[in-house]
């Protein structure tokens, strides 16, 4: 027999305390009697008058003390027939994209899996194993179990994804599980990341089985589609950025196609560790653009990228204004913009039929009542309108500040030094945000504002464009602002969404549930959450459908860290072939489970003795 906590035996000193207590208690106890006359016949404790003589209570108290001390010391029997679990092992398997890299012996992930299976085979039959995948979101695939077959099955089923892997979080999970474990546990990491690149907090606490040697990879680092808001496919162009991650010159071919129709196929040569861009024009139509790399490299996940050329439907713009030069200017602008179809009507001639056939309504010096159920731009609203309460006018003002985060002002150079002759001073409605500011001697006031009102995008320019003649080539920045504002007001026409793998994308609204997904691997499942949320783990096309409503999500794997599969500090690969080369598993202390069991029994015995001692003490007192 041995003890898991031998230091607890030092509490045996409490026996001496108990004896002293008994002696002290005995010395103190005096009873006054009328006379010793009758006690002369009673045999006195003369020999042991001051010595200790245990009684039943003392024996019970000693037993209680013994049970408690042994319980703390946690005794256990050492023997060959101990069938309890001796240790726990936490397997952390890297499932990031780089693990798909092909080596001489096969894919890194397959090699890592093989090593994990080998380690598993070497474990004791009662050892417990936990399996954690270190992918985009670390996940405990199998909790501690002695069923090694279940672990094998789980290992066979997991696959790497086209995302980065969060080893830090996965190792933190593993470390937390190890600390919570009442058995000693060790962590084994199967990855292509060298130990020196692991988070410092875990670097020395894990056994690293590193796989992978090759750095041969050329990948598509980016695929950008340039298409103006009102431009159709004829004006669209694509740029494919290729990166050579290896330390040798790379060659290959890249094919860009629209749908199934090739647009361009070109060869390339990229020096080591350098990038190269390829521009593609003259797309024959709108749709999914696919760039496919053909190269003898190790990682295929970054050899394909997707883009989307938007089919442009013309935006119908209705200008409601008196016959003014502004109407002519807007007509000229629409004529120059292929995606704009402009009609005009006077305020008195405005009917509901006009509004039904309109995507954007521009009201000049006029705010209709009731408000139209259409996206609208109000230019220099009349003084008594209810939508933008006018508190006064200002003259000779300038644009002093602007909201650069709003899409209407994106990519626009500063609008300062834009003198305005006259403008309305309006009180901004609560639903709006100010786009352009100015101020006079007394207050600050908006010059342009926008927001969503009654479910419709609504904007307002407080100064008169006609008077300011701003829609001219001289005011290119304001012109761009105006066009951006029109683009923001135009209804959304996108049918496909382009995202990166691993990004959380909320989709919606979908009119019906459930929303079914077909992923690039042909797997079909339903999306959960409200709104439905998609996290694409693989590059490719995701088709979503819900009772007739269809959407397409194109996921690209653009991760230069994962694509750079070469490792700077490569540790010698572990050729796991025998127990002799296997890193030693920390020897567990003997029979923790049996000691815990013995401790529980001893504590139960202590409770029983305590109750018995209490009963005897009460009986003695009575």
């Amino acid at each position, binding site marked *: 027999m041995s003890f898991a906590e031998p230091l607890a035996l030092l509490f045996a000193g409490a026996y001496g305390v108990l004896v002293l207590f008994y002696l002290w208690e005995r010395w103190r106890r005096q009873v006054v*009697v009328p006379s010793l006359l009758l006690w002369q016949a009673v045999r006195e404790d003369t020999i042991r008058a001051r010595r200790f*003589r245990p009684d039943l209570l003392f024996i019970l108290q000693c037993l209680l003390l013994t049970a408690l001390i042994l319980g703390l010391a946690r005794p256990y029997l050492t023997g060959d027939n101990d069938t309890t679990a001796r240790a726990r092992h936490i397997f952390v398997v890297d499932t990031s994209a780089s693990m798909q890299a092909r080596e001489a012996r096969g894919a890194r992930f397959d090699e890592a899996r093989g090593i994990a299976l080998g380690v598993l085979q070497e474990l004791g039959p009662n050892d417990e194993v936990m399996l954690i995948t270190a992918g985009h979101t670390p996940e405990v695939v199998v909790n501690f179990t002695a069923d090694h077959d279940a672990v094998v099955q789980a290992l066979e089923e997991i696959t790497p994804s086209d995302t980065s892997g969060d080893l830090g979080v996965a190792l933190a999970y593993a470390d937390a599980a190890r600390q919570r474990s009442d058995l000693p546990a060790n962590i084994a990491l199967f990855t292509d990341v060298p130990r020196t690149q692991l988070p410092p907090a875990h670097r020395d606490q894990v056994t690293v089985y590193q796989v992978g040697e090759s750095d041969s990879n050329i990948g598509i680092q980016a695929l950008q589609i340039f298409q103006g808001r009102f431009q159709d496919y004829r004006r669209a162009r694509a740029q494919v950025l290729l990166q050579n991650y290896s330390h040798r010159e790379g060659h290959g071919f890249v094919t860009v196609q629209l749908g199934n129709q090739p647009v361009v196929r070109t060869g390339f040569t990229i020096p080591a560790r350098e990038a190269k861009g390829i521009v593609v024009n003259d797309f024959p139509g709108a749709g999914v653009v696919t760039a496919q790399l053909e190269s003898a490299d190790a990682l295929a996940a970054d050899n394909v990228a997707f883009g989307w050329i938007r089919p442009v439907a013309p935006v119908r713009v209705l200008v409601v204004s008196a016959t003014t030069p502004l109407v002519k200017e807007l007509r000229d602008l629409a004529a120059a913009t292929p995606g704009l179809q402009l009609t005009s009507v006077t305020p008195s001639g405005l009917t509901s039929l006009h509004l039904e056939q309109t995507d954007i309504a521009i009201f000049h010096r006029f705010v209709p009542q009731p408000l139209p159920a259409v996206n609208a731009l109000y230019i220099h609203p009349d003084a008594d309108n209810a939508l933008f309460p006018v508190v006064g006018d200002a003259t000779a003002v300038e644009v002093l500040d602007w909201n650069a985060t709003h899409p209407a002002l994106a990519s626009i150079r500063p609008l300062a030094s834009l003198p305005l002759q006259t403008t309305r001073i309006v009180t901004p409605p609560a639903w709006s945000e100010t786009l352009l500011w100015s101020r006079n001697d007394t207050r600050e006031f908006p010059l342009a504002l926008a927001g969503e009102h009654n479910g419709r995008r609504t904007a307002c320019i407080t100064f008169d464009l006609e008077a300011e003649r701003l829609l001219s080539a001289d005011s290119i920045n304001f012109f761009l602002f105006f066009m951006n504002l029109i683009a923001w007001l135009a209804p959304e026409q996108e049918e496909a969404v382009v995202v990166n793998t691993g990004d959380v994308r909320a989709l919606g609204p979908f009119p019906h549930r459930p929303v079914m997904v077909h992923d690039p691997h042909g797997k079909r499942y339903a999306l959960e959450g409200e709104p439905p949320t998609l996290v694409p783990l693989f590059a490719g096309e995701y088709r979503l459908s819900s009772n007739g409503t269809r959407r397409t999500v194109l996921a690209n794997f653009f991760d230069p860290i994962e694509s750079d599969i070469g490792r700077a500090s490569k540790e010698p690969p572990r050729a796991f072939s025998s127990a002799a080369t296997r890193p030693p598993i920390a020897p567990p202390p003997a029979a923790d489970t049996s000691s815990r069991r013995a401790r529980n029994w001893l504590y139960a015995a202590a409770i029983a003795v305590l109750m018995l001692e209490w009963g005897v003490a009460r009986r003695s007192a009575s």
Partner: protein
Amino acid sequence: MEPGDSVTDPAAAAEAALADVLSPGFLRKLDRLHLTVRRSLSTRPGNTPMPRGAQGSGIVIESHKNYDLGDDLRHLDWNAYGRLDQLMIKTFRAEREAPLQLFIDLSASMAFPAEDEKVPFALSLATSLAYVSLRQHDPVRLVGLSAALPSRFMASPLFRHRQSLQRLRNFLLTLRPAGETALADGISAALTTQRTPSVAVVISDFLVAPQVYETALAHLVARRFTVAALRVIGPAEREPTRLFRRAQVVDAETGAYRFVTLTPANVARYEVALRDHLERLQSFCQRSGIVLAVADTAAGLEQTLFHDLPALGMIH
């Protein structure tokens, strides 16, 4: 029970006990009792008949005697002369005053074990006997005995009337147990001021060497007192296991101590010692013509007054 442990405050216990005795209901019970006095050498006339005393005049005819020259002819029994043709003179039962002296042991031993409440019981017993005597128009004197008292005793004045009960009570309440036992010395000292033999009742636990209490009682017998001894005992004194199992037992009067474990054998030894003590006391009293009653505080005052003492002939 340990030093300082007591069931109740001793003074309060004594006061409560006396209050019970002097309650109207209990006094009515005591009205039925009479002390049996077989001899009194008091010359004062009283109401207590002397069973074997005779005098020339009286109420109750005691006996007859032959006529002697000088006898009072008024007491000639002419009926006896008519029948016996002999001159016979009637003699009458003598009635004398029979003072009662109550000697109460006030040594420290009477205060322990505290739960036995021997002192309140002794005071109650003394008060009850005093009342019985006063109701018989016999005077009563109370004497406390202790080595702690000046001259080893403290005596009350002679109480003659029932109206003296309150003063008698007040005197008793001044008595506190303390010091060593002074039965012999105290009684001897007390008798120097009270020479007239009468009735003496000694109330004590008699937990002294036999020669001490024998000397004390012998003093009284020698002075021709009618003596009664009341041995006060309590349940804890009978069964010390009520107090402890293993302890340092300390003598209440001398402070001497012994370490004792009350094993069954030791308990048996103690019981034998107690029995021997009581038997020796009984034997001495019997030889000396002293009435001995063992008054158990657990049995109660009424058991002693209305059963034990009448059974012994001390009360009727």
